[in-house]
C-alpha cells in the first residue's frame, strides 16, 4: 500500500513501514523551545535530573517572543534560558535574531527530519518536507533528554491545488480559504499534505506560509514534498548537501482529497475571533482598521515585504492607521534593507520592529487599545491575542495588509491599483 508523506517520513526515520493509526516512538532530529515555553522546559529538565542533553547541537532555545524583553520578569526568564544554554551546551538564538520558525527554516530543518518544538507553529518546517509538530514544554524537555518522542501516525487530508493565482492573491489567501472551508478543527490529529501543479511552482516563502497555518485547522503537521525549490533554498543557505528528495507514493491512501482551483481564489480575510471565520476582503468594505501588522513567521519574509512594498511605493498610509513591520529574521531584515523595502515602509509612514514575533501575541510592540482593530499578516486572531480582549484582529495577506494601510479600512489590494 502506498504511503502519504507523513507515513513515508516516519517510515524512513524508523527504518520500517508504519501507517496511519500506529503509535510509534521516533528519534527527534531537532528539538526547540522559545522564551515563553522554554523556562518551563528548563525547570522541568533541571528538577527531574535528566542529565546531559541527548544532542546539544540539535537542541535549541530561541528568544523571540519577547524580543527585546519588555519587562523584568521576562528579562529574568531570558537569563534562565541563557544560563541553561551555557551549562548544557545546547544552542541559543538570542533576541534580535528572529522568529524560531524562520530560523529553523533558514538554518536547521532538513527534508525528512523529525522536528518538535514547544510552539504550535513548529509545523512551519513541513514546507521543507520535514515532519514538524508543536508540543508542550514537558514533551520537549523529554526530547532534549532522550532524543526521541512518541507519535500517533496521522491520517492525511490531501490538498490538491491547480492553476495560477490571480494578481495579488497569495499562498496566505489559499490557506485562509482552506481553513475557512474545513474549520478550525477540520484537520485535528491529522496531517495536511499539499500537492498539485500550483504547489509545485510555489516559492518556499509561500509554502512556509501555508505550512505555518496548518495548525489553525487543528493539524498535527502541514507538509510538502521536497523538490528543486527546496534544494534551491538549501543551496542559498549554504546547506545544499542536506537536500534529499521525499515525496508521497502515487497510490498513497488519503482520508480525503480536497481540490482547489487557485484561479478562483480572491483576497481572503479571517474576521475576529477565530481563524476559520473567513470572508472575502471585498466584502468587508468600510471596516475601520487602526493598526496594520506586517510580519511574523507567517508573512514576515522577503517575498512578503516585496509584495507589500510594491503597493506602498511612493504612497502614504492613512493618517488614521499605524503600520508596524517586523521582519521574521535578521537575514530578512538585511535583505529587505538592501532591496529598499524598509525605506518604502518608513517613507509611507510605517515603523520597523526588530526581527522577532513583534505584536503577534500581545506581549509588546503594538498592543491594541480598547475597541481597536488590527489587520495582521499573522496566523491567529483569537480574542485577546494581541494583548487586549477588548480589541479585534483580522488576518490577511501582505497585499491586503498594504492596501488596508493605505485606506485605513479593510481593502482588497486589487482596488488600490
Amino acid at each position: 500500500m502506498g504511503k502519504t508523506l507523513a507515513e513515508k517520513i516516519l517510515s524512513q526515520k524508523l527504518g520500517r513501514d508504519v501507517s496511519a493509526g500506529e503509535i510509534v516512538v521516533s528519534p527527534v532530529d531537532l528539538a526547540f523551545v522559545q522564551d515563553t515555553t522554554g523556562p518551563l522546559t528548563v525547570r522541568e529538565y533541571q528538577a527531574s535530573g535528566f542529565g546531559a542533553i541527548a544532542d546539544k547541537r540539535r537542541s535549541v532555545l530561541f528568544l523571540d517572543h519577547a524580543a527585546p524583553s519588555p519587562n523584568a520578569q521576562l528579562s529574568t526568564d531570558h537569563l534562565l534560558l541563557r544560563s541553561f544554554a551555557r551549562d548544557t551546551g545546547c544552542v541559543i538564538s538570542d533576541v534580535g535574531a528572529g522568529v524560531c520558525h524562520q530560523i529553523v527554516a533558514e538554518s536547521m530543518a532538513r527534508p525528512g527530519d523529525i522536528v518538535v518544538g514547544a510552539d504550535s507553529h513548529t509545523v512551519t518546517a513541513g514546507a521543507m518536507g520535514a515532519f514538524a509538530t508543536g508540543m508542550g514544554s514537558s514533551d520537549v524537555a523529554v526530547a532534549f533528554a532522550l532524543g526521541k518522542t512518541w507519535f500517533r501516525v496521522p491520517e492525511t487530508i490531501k490538498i490538491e491545488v491547480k492553476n495560477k493565482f490571480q494578481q495579488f492573491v497569495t499562498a496566505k489567501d489559499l490557506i485562509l480559504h482552506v481553513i475557512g472551508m474545513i474549520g478550525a478543527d477540520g484537520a485535528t490529529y491529522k496531517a495536511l499534505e499539499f500537492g498539485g501543479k500550483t504547489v509545485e511552482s510555489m516559492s518556499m516563502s509561500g509554502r512556509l506560509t501555508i505550512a505555518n497555518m496548518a495548525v489553525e485547522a487543528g493539524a498535527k503537521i502541514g507538509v510538502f514534498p521536497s523538490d528543486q525549490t527546496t534544494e534551491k533554498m538549501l543551496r542559498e543557505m549554504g546547506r545544499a548537501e542536506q537536500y534529499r528528495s521525499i515525496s508521497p507514493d502515487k497510490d498513497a491512501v488519503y482520508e480525503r482529497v480536497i481540490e482547489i482551483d487557485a484561479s478562483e481564489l480572491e483576497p481572503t480575510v479571517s474576521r475576529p475571533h477565530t481563524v476559520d471565520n473567513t470572508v472575502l476582503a471585498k466584502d468587508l468594505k468600510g471596516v475601520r482598521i487602526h493598526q496594520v501588522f506586517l510580519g511574523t513567521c507567517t508573512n514576515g519574509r522577503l517575498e512578503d515585504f516585496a509584495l507589500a512594498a510594491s503597493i506602498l511605493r511612493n504612497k502614504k498610509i492613512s493618517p488614521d492607521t499605524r503600520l508596524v513591520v517586523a521582519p521574521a529574521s535578521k537575514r530578512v531584515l538585511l535583505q529587505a534593507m538592501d532591496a529598499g523595502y524598509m525605506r518604502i515602509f518608513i517613507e509611507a509612514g510605517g515603523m520597523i520592529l526588530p526581527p522577532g514575533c513583534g505584536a503577534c501575541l500581545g506581549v509588546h510592540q503594538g498592543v491594541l487599545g480598547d475597541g481597536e482593530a488590527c489587520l495582521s499578516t499573522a496566523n491567529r486572531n483569537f480574542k485577546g491575542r494581541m494583548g487586549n480582549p477588548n480589541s479585534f484582529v483580522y488576518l490577511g495577506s501582505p497585499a491586503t495588509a498594504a492596501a488596508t494601510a493605505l485606506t485605513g479600512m479593510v481593502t482588497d489590494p486589487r482596488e488600490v491599483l
Partner: protein
Amino acid sequence: MLKGKAFKFGDDISTDLIVPGRLVHLRSNLPELAKHVLEDADPTFAARVKPGDFVVGGNNFGLGSSREHAPIVIKMAGVSAVLAKSFARIFFRNAINRGLPVLICDTDQIKEGDELEVDMEAGIVHDVTNDVNLTFKPIPKAMLAILDEGGLIPYIQKYGDFKIE
C-alpha cells in the same frame, strides 16, 4: 470517583482565553498566573471554582498555542477533569502530560452548575442534577499510561524511556 460542579464554556476555548499572552510575564510565577485562569472567557471563574469541579467545554477545547501553562493553571484551580465534545491536539497531549484528565463526551447534555460524578475506570460521567449517564471516549492506552503516573515527567523518571509501543 471524581465529584464536583460543572462550569460550562462554549466552543473554541483557545489557550489565549485560558492564559492570555498579555500575562506571559507571569509564566514563571504559576500561583499568580493561576489567579487569572480562563479570565478572558469568564472573569468570575477563578473566584467561583472549587476543588474537584469540572471545566466543561464544547468543540475544539484548547485550540491555539502550545503553552502547557493552560492545563497547568486549570489543574492548579483544583479542576479534576476537563470535559468537551472535542479537544485541540496539543492541549489534549499537554493535559495528559500534566496529569489532568481530559474526557471526550457529549457535553451538550450538561448544564452550568450541574453536579457531576466521573468514574474514570468505568468511563462514565453521571450528571447527578439531570440524572443522566454519559460515556466518555476511552483515553488512548499510550496516554493513559502517562496519565496514570501523574504526567510525562514522572512517567519518564519512573521508566527512563517510552514504554508505549
